[in-house]
Every structure is written in C-alpha cells, then in structure tokens.
C-alpha cells in the first residue's frame, strides 16, 4: 500500500521533482547533432570480432565507415585511445518509462498497449543510458495469459515520447504462463478469484482466445469474399491475435516452468504461429531441443534464482546450454536497476559454461535486436547500421570499467564528463531552491513541506521494487506482477 502513498508524496513535493527534471533535462541536452568520428578504440563489433586501434565514423546517425586512420572531415572527433567501444546494449525485457504495467482485470487484454503509458521523463532512462543501454522492449506485465501490446524503443532521453519509438520495429505483445497469471500471490479477501486459477485453465484461456481470433479472421474473410453481407463487429481484443496468426506481431511469452512454456509452444504449433521469445525461461535448459525445433528465441536472467518457487530450478548455465543448441539467447534485466549493468551479466555467460566472448556480448546487443526485429538496423557495429554505440573506460566485461559516453544514432545521450559538470551545477541550484522561502514549509503543523525533506531509504532486496512502485496496482505489493 505504501507504494501508492509514495507516489502521492512525490506529487506533494512537486517543486523538488521539477528541480530534478530541469537538472536532468539539462544533462540530456548534451545530446549533440552532427557527425562523429571515434578514433583509435578497441572496437567489439558483436558480429565481426574485436578490432584494435580502430576508428568509427558516424554520419547522419548511421555508421558509415569502420577502419584505421579515418579522416574526420567535418565530424566531431572523440579520441578513444585505450578505450573500448561496443554496440549499445539492448534490453529485451524492461518496464522502464511505463506509468502502468498491468491491466489485470481480464486474463486476455490484447487490446491494451503500453505505448499509452510511456513517461519520457522517467529518470530510469537516464540511469539505463549511464549503463550503456540504448534500446529496449517495453513489455506489459505478466498478470494475464495474453497481456498488452509492447513498445520497441530507443532511450532518446530529453525527446518527446513518440521520438522514443523505433518506427519500423515490428509490433509485439506480452503473453504469460504460470503463477502470476494464476494470480497465486494476489489474493484480495472478498474479491472473486479471476479465471484461470490453474495451469490447465491458462492453457484453455489462450486456446479460447486463438479459437475466437481464428473465427474472427474467418468472419472477415467471408465478408471480404462477399459470402456475408454484414461486416463483423470490429474486435480490438482479437485484432492483435489475428496479426499473430498472420506472423505480423511478435509474441514475447513470460514463463518459468519448462512444462508450461513447452505447452505454449504446442499451442502455437496448434494454431500455426511462432513464439518470438520465451521470456525469463529459467527452466528453458530443460527443453532446449524443443525450443530449437520450434525456432523461438529465449530471453533470460543470467543468474537470478530462488526468489520464488518458480525460480528455484534456475541455473546460471542456461545461456550456455541454449547457445549450444543454436538458440538466439538474450540476457534481460526486467528491472530499472539491473538495466544499468547488463554488460556484467553478459560477462557471466563466459564464466558459466564458457560462451565465447563475442557470443556473450551478442546476448545483450545483437541477439535482443534480432528478437525485437530490429537486428538489421542496430545491435552490432557494422557499416549501414545505426550509430548506437557505447564508449567504455576499459573492457566492458571488467567490473572496473565504466561507461564514458552513450550514443544513439550518433547523438550523445550520456557522457560522464558532462554529467559531472551538470552535477555540480544542479547541486548548487537545488541548494538555492531549498533556501527559497517559497519552498520551506510552515514552521509548525504537519504539512510535508515543513523542514528539510529526507529521502527515504530504498533497499533493493526485491529487484523489482522500482517497477512495482510504478504499477499503481495494489495487488503487486508483494510480488511483481510482471516478473
């Protein structure tokens, strides 16, 4: 409950939030237009090996040349001697920017769309950029067998929300299986339990939806063939499912147990569509051959486990075992916290089983790009691709490395040196604002403005804490309705 209260508290101290936003908008404004030449870096391309002492030229947002001793022309030059450059990190499972995550009233909410809940000012975006993340799949929660439509975005912090959307990215949708769909941890006394309540019911809910979608498509086909005279009533719930049947919308399916995810693959086979990614999939190592046969990708946590019964059989070798089967694997965060350090999660794929370095890097760059259907334009450092790159102080898999600069399409969206400058300025500005008489509360009484506001501590034992806070769904207090 207090999560909601926190939200209201935030609103009551609006002046501080405003100050904060001004500050970070100022930081984001460091994004610079124009061409860039990154000189003399160790370039980890994520597709064509690691290149020493190499330059990258980005013009009009695209990578136009990769090589040695490139001339800058009119491009701004960044000396990256001794530094590493990787593609921007891509998170195939995030809820950043979302003001709402779960529409949990029905078990099939394919009519909803997270694009209607985007907050382009979410500070999580800036923190993700500071960890080298440039793009993400923003997913609906996992309260439903068939959840809402997703957004494939780049973190163009400081721009309007429509600028975040990758225009030519295929559309997607969230599915889910298991305990969250069963609402196992969301019992509210006095409330009628929502169907389905078991794994049997979840399977039938999905089958029912696709049966209706198939009939709906048939009804339109009959009408268009003039077999019927009255057009079918337009059904916003079923239209996205028809797109799935026609291969036009990518299914991203949350699940934990191997049996439930295998059952979803079977439903897909029954209705003749493909699952794009199995999300979480902490037991996918148990049925990797079947996944390979179906052709689904998998997006996992590298080593989270044991945080609930469904995660108890998770092992950190999953990335390696799927990779060995030739499955496209990505490592995701599902967290505003973890999205800041996916490079180190990729490094763990080398430790557990021994995924080669480039293939480990792919798991947070090119592979998620492929899974999101944007692999042709981003995810690796290649001529013709978007200039989405990160400059690191050292090897991105070393714990001692930091992000220096994060660029999207050649524009700088995070720069540590610029951040340091803005920080000092913002601290001074905040101090001045706090001194302002207008911003001090009454001397007595119980108003929240009275006296200095002390930030509450936030411990992230529950790595979904930040996400839950944003759901506004009182049912998700204990366990994230999306993880």
């Amino acid at each position, binding site marked *: 409950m207090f999560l909601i209260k926190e939200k209201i508290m935030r609103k009551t101290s609006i002046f501080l939030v405003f100050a904060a936003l001004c500050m970070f908008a100022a930081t984001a404004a460091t994004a610079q237009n124009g061409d860039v030449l990154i000189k003399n870096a160790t370039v980890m391309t994520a597709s064509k090996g690691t290149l020493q002492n190499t330059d990258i030229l980005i013009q009009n947002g695209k990578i136009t040349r990769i090589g040695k001793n490139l001339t800058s022309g009119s491009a701004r030059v960044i000396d990256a001697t001794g530094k590493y450059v990787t593609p921007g990190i891509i998170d195939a499972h995030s809820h950043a920017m979302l003001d709402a995550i779960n529409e949990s009233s029905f078990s099939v909410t394919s009519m909803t769309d997270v694009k209607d809940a985007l907050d382009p000012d979410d500070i999580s975006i800036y923190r993700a950029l500071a960890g080298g993340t440039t793009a993400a799949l923003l997913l609906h929660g996992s309260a439903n067998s068939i959840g809402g439509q997703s957004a494939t975005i780049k973190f163009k912090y400081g721009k309007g929300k429509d600028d975040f959307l990758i225009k030519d990215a295929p559309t997607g949708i969230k599915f889910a299986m298991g305990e969250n769909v069963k609402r196992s941890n969301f019992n509210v006394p006095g409330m009628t339990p929502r169907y389905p309540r078991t794994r049997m019911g979840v399977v039938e809910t999905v089958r029912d939806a696709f049966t209706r979608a198939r009939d709906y498509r048939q009804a339109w086909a009959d009408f268009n063939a003039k077999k019927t005279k009255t057009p079918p009533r337009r059904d916003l719930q079923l239209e996205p499912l028809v797109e799935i049947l026609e291969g036009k919308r990518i299914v991203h399916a949350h699940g934990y147990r191997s049996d439930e995810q295998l059952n979803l693959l079977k439903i897909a086979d029954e209705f003749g569509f493909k699952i794009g990614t199995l999300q979480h999939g902490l037991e996918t190592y148990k049925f990797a*051959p079947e996944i390979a046969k179906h052709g689904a990708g998998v997006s996992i946590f590298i080593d989270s486990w044991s945080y609930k019964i469904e995660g108890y059989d998770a092992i950190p070798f999953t990335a390696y075992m799927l990779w060995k089967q030739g499955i496209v694997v990505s490592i995701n965060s599902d967290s505003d916290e973890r999205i800041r350090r996916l490079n180190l999660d990729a*490094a763990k794929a080398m430790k557990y089983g021994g995924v080669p370095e480039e293939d480990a890097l792919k798991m947070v760059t090119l592979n998620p790009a492929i899974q999101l259907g944007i692999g042709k334009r981003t995810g690796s450092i290649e001529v013709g691709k978007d200039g989405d790159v990160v400059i690191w*102080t050292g090897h991105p*898999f070393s714990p001692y490395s930091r992000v220096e600069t994060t660029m999207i399409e050649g524009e700088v969206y995070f720069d540590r040196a610029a951040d340091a400058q803005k920080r000092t300025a913002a601290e001074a500005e905040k101090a001045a604002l706090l001194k302002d008489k207008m911003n001090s509360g009454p001397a007595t009484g119980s108003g929240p403005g*009275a006296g200095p506001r002390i930030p509450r*501590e936030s411990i992230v034992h529950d790595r979904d804490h930040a996400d839950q806070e944003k759901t506004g769904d009182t049912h998700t207090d204990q366990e994230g309705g999306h993880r």
Partner: protein
Amino acid sequence: MKNLINIKKLADFLRSGSVAVIAMLMLAVGSVSAQSDGSQQNKTGRAGTFAITNARIVTVSGEVIEKGSVLIRDGKIAAVGTSIQIPRGAETIKGDGMTVFPGMIDAATNLGLAEISGGANATMDVQEVGSINANARAIKGVNPHSSHVNVTRINGITTVISFPTGGLISGQAALINLNGSTQDEMAVVPEAGLIVNFPRVATGRRFGFGGPGAGGGTDFNAALRRRDEQLDELKKLFEAAKNYQKARAAYESDKSLPYLATDAQYEALVPYVTGQKPIFFTAEREIDIKGVAKFVADMKLKGIIIGGQEAWKAADDLKKNNIAVIFTNIYSLPTSQDYPYDYYFAAPGKMQSAGIKFAVSTGEGGGEVRDLPYQAGIAGAFGLTPEQALRSVTLNPAEILGVADKLGSIEVGKIANVVVADGDILDPRTKIQHMFIGGRLIPLTSRHTELFDSFKNRTASPK
C-alpha cells in the same frame, strides 16, 4: 499415496534427526535418497595436507607473491612463501597460472535462513514475531543443507554473517563458514552480534490521499520526536538489562540478597549492552547514522552499522566513535530522482577517502550472496582501487567482525579458507578452480552444477 505420506514423514524426521541417524536411515531406505536430488546435502569436502604450488598469491594483508606456494595443514594455513618446505605426503595442487585469494566474507546476509524469499513461507526463518527478540539466534535457524550454501561458496565466498530481521531487536547474528553438516560445524562465532533496527527519523511514509495533512503527514520535528521516543524505550531496555546484570552479579557474590528470576531477553542483551560484544545497527541515511553514533557514544557500546548507504556523510561521527560500516545493497537505485546516477556505486570510494572502516556486503537473503565479488568490483569502477575493493570483502570484514586473527587474508595460522582462481576473483569472467574451507578441499558442485549435469546432454525424445 500411502508411500508418499511415509516419505514425507520420514523427511521431516530426517531433518530433525542427528547426522548419524540420517546416515543410517539413508542406508536403510534407498528410496529416500531418490527423493532428494543430492543438492540438499552439502558435501563437506575432504581434509588433508595440501600444497598449492607455483601460484600467484594475493595475501591481501601483505605484498602479492608473484610465484609462491601455500601449505594447508590441520585446517590452517601452515606456510606461505616462495621457498616453503612441502612435507612428504602433502597433496599438491598445481597453481601455475592461477591466483590464490583468501575466501571472501559477506558480513550481512540472511543466508541459510531464507531459501525461497517470495511466496514460500515454509522456507523462511528470517523474522520472528514481536519487536524484541534479543534471544533469537540465527545460528539456531541456519539450514546447513540449504542450496544457497553450495551455490554461494563455489563463487569464492567462504564465510558470511547470517542475521535475523524485523522488529526493533531482531536477534543475534551468526558468523558461519559455508561448510559443515551441522550448525556447530559451520559456526565461527555463533553469537557474533546483536541486530538492532535503529529507529528512523521517518517523515515520508505517512502521507495519505488528499495531500498535506490529510493522512496524518509528519513534519520533520514530529518525526524526530517520535524517533527520540523510540530511542528512549531502547535506552530504558538497555539500562534495565545492565541493572539486571548487576542484580544477578550481586546475588552471586552475596546469596543473602534477593534472587532475581532469569529473564531470557536480559540474559541475551547483557554482553551487548555492556559493550563486550558488538551491536549491528541497521541505518542507511545520514541522519540515522549520526543518530547511531550518538547512541553508541551515550550508551558506551561497541557499534557497527549495517547498510550505511550515506555513511560517507557522517565520517567524523563514525570515526570518533570507532564505528565501522558494513555497506550493503550497492545496487540500490538512487533514492531520489535528483541524486547522481552512481550515488551508491560511488559510496564505498567515498568512505575510503573519508577514512571510514568499511566492508562491502550484498545484504542479500541468500541466493544472490554469490554476487559479492561483483558488487565490490563495481565499487572498484567508481572510486576504489581493485586492491581496496578486494580488501573490502576479505580482510576489512574480518577486522570489523573481530576475527582478523582467523580470517580475511593468506597468513600463517589463519583458518584455511583459500580460493584458487584463474583470474581476478572480482571479475565475473573468472572461474574458481579449487577452494578450501577450514582446510577441507570443497567439491565445486552445487544445486546448479547438478541440474546442469542432469540436462546438458538431453536430446528430445522421438515421438
């Protein structure tokens, strides 16, 4: 069905039984072991005399030895150096290309008390009912056979503090090595400290719908008053425990005095309120940490901070009162939107600069404690040197916990908690090659490696 029930009962009995009984029953009833995948029984390793030769030795306490040997005998580190005598019969572990580290110590976890944190109450022993539980001891709740034990230790973490949570006084923390069939075998210091959740100056959590005042919002002064009231209660409790101890001692020396009945809470509190043993105060923010410092000074206590996310802002108060910090949750998101993005990543570096004694800890329930090296590593990217980062998870926690004579470095006479790795132990790419806890060579297996082995060669069965 009948068979199932019997097995369940048997399992319950086994959990409550002695090791000998378990062993006998395991022999007698083969089907029981089939019920367990083996990971529920942590392998305790093999004792012996071991020599790790030709390795790079990061002693932490002294210089790095570029090519040397470590001798392990009778559970202790018996010799370290470039030209040590290897006794006949010692088992040699070739350390060529390897690096030897002291086992890492996570000084603030709930490991062994919390198997599955969400939605599985049957696996949770972290928090007792009520507010004052000084007599609740983590060592009596730790499950030696938790799968978190083997998963954590094979990442080079050999020792942890496990502590209870909740209430004002949660109970007593245990310092345990991550090996042993029984709680006693695991214990290094069974009662290592008292956990006190220091009352917060809480202004933020009482806002209701409708904005200011509507939900009984609290201003700063009111929050301070409430905190001070709670502190007064704590002071009274501590004073009462001291008086209890005086009255009991007086009776011991003069039996004509009235006998004071035994009180479980006071008994448990006495070593802590009299400053003999440390009290771990959980406190995160500057204002609360400064409150702890004052309380420790007023009450003449031995204090340690757990949490300490803003401890660098209270350096003088902490140093003046000899209060060290067990810094947890480096992955926390900055608490305020306008805080720098690296607010907590940079905190250990700031503590180092400010001269505060500190350790880096995960503060995790169990499953994620194995992330300790990488949490220290991130602190290494934001202000600590790699050497300082390593020290923050080895010798620093040992010193803070008062066990630097036993743990935390590669030195002769210390408990042989030794890790051999193929690279920097704080680097997520590094693989642990060998490890010892209490001089026992620990098999590098876990619930995870066992599941991996079970499925790594699986092929789909033809229809």
